[in-house]
């Protein structure tokens, strides 16, 4: 790995003082990437791009938005009606949030399927969870800013959760609100933090990429690279593949922005916030629905612990528990391709998460209550019981000798159809 010889004098002058070009050359041309990555590996770069899009649209929206309870709603409508291309910036930002979560959830499930969280990538995984938590905080506060009915009441319900904390709960809530209910001080500080947190996300993403580049990417077979025949340079192979994936993703994104911009939203948020009138059904944005279901699943006290507090604890635990996955799942085999039992449970987990989302979007009545409780129980059982058991009891399939081996035999795990859904199951 020698430093490249740059021909351009200016480039050499800069690089001698700040080796940014050497750095880029190393990370793009020399950095070894497994040759067999499939399209499920596109979602990381997509997430990074969506983050940039959100920051760019957010900054330009912030130039026009007024974070005061008397003006917020109307300033957003002014953006939609009077600001040149304001409607476009707003719809991109609004739908971009949903896109961000779609991309990141797929990215996370890819990690679960292929064992990307296993040694030596535990910290990479943990940093990812930190990014997810920051995204959730950012999205929650961002949704409050238009100051519609759902903005206000969603903020009220979720900030009220902290009152479940014993002893200091009420004080914490008052401190969060800056008053005795969600009001102008709350809106103002949410705006400030909503502008700030994305840059914290950028910082953690840098750490995430640093951790990634330390040992390189995992791959669909889950086995380590053994030599140069197993890898290819990131550029041009994966830059080009990522760009193609980006093109397809942008089509998907554009369909929402231009033709169904309010698909992910709630009509109630087009009504200005009214502290004296609660909507019939308070629903968070779709990407929070599974956690909402878990929160509401606990309808009974356990011993001296009130139901509300248990619900809050479980809701946060559902995400924090992900941090323990590298230690809950001890199987030495990474990829679900070679773990037939784990694979089945993976699909059940995915179904369970979708069911939780469905429960979260419906009123907590009738059959939804029991289904939500069962789905919540199963969710925790998957991680706390099933994963450790599988590590002990499962007999994995034999792994191939190397990454290069199946490819050279002609059974590619490489490229293929233009569809985002990827294919090819090869033993």
């Amino acid at each position, binding site marked *: 790995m020698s430093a490249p010889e740059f021909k351009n004098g200016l480039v050499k002058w800069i690089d001698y003082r700040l080796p940014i070009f050497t750095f880029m050359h190393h990370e793009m041309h020399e950095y070894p990437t497994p040759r067999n990555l499939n399209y499920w590996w596109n979602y990381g770069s997509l997430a990074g791009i969506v983050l940039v899009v959100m920051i760019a649209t957010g900054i330009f929206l912030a*130039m026009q938005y007024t974070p005061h309870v008397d003006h917020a709603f109307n300033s957003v409508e002014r953006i939609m009606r009077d600001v040149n291309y304001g409607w476009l*910036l707003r719809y991109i930002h609004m739908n971009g949030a949903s896109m961000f979560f779609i991309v990141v959830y797929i990215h996370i499930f890819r990690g679960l399927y292929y064992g990307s969280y296993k040694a030596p990538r535990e910290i990479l995984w943990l940093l990812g969870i930190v990014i997810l938590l920051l995204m959730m905080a950012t999205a929650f506060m961002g949704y409050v800013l238009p100051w519609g009915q759902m903005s206000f009441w969603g903020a009220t319900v979720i900030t009220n959760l902290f009152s479940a904390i014993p002893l200091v709960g009420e004080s914490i809530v008052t401190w969060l609100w800056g008053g005795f209910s969600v009001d102008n001080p709350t809106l103002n500080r949410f705006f400030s933090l909503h502008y700030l947190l994305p840059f914290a996300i950028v910082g953690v993403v840098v750490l995430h990429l640093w951790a990634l580049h330390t040992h390189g990417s995992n791959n669909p077979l889950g086995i380590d690279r053994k030599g140069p025949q197993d890898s290819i340079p990131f550029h041009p192979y994966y830059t080009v593949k990522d760009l193609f994936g980006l093109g397809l993703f942008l089509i998907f994104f554009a369909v929402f922005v231009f033709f169904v911009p309010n698909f992910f939203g709630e009509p109630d948020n087009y009504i200005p916030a009214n502290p004296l009138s609660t909507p019939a059904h308070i629903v968070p944005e779709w990407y929070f629905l599974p956690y909402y279901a878990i929160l509401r699943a606990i309808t009974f006290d356990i011993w001296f612990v009130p139901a509300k507090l248990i619900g809050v604890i479980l809701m946060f635990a559902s995400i924090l528990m992900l941090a323990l996955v590298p230690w809950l799942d001890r199987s030495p085999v990474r990829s679900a391709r070679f773990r037939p039992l784990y694979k089945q449970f993976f699909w059940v987990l995915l179904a369970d998460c979708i069911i939780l989302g469905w429960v979260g979007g419906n009123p907590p009545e009738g059959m939804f209550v029991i289904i939500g409780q069962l789905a919540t129980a199963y969710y925790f059982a998957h991680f706390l019981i099933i994963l450790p058991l599988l590590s002990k009891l499962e007999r994995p399939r034999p792994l191939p000798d190397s990454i290069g081996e199946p490819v050279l035999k002609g059974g590619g795990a490489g490229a293929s159809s233009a569809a985002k859904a990827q294919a090819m199951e090869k033993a």
Partner: protein
Amino acid sequence: MSDSAPMAADGGEDGGATRRDFLYIATGVMGAAGVAAVAWPFVDSMNPSAEVLALAEIEVDLSPIEEGQSITVTWRGKPVFIRRRTADEIDTAQAVDLGLLPDPQADADRVQKPEWLVMVGICTHLGCVPLGQKSSDPKGEFGGWFCPCHGSHYDTSGRIRKGPAPKNLEVPAYTFIDDQTVRIG
């Protein structure tokens, strides 16, 4: 090693572009066009919005203004002086020797109808609003307007005569819609 980055706009090996290079060039050009098309809405969003542009022009009814009376209206956030000049004021303005003016400009070049003087009421020195709109205001030594901040004197045509201001009071674009109404901007 191979200079095959899709964004590279150069390509062409000896004698002209190969098919491969044509593909890369076409893709690169399309990508560049896409980036430019995406950048424009961001830039344009910073331009004046529709409700700002709606106030870019104002119409003023001149009928209540008597001879020798001035009004001040707000246009694009700035004060605009509209004065219905008396015959004396018009004569004095037209009789001034242009050689005496720090910023020479004939009165005829500053008004469309001699009776109506329309100017931006901001001193060209450092931006204060000159006095002289009210009959009780000081009007300076030349019978027009006087800026109290640093002592600039403007005459009955709004031209600088004495003091630190470098230029005459600005005349905005305006049109008479009819004898009694003027549109500024």
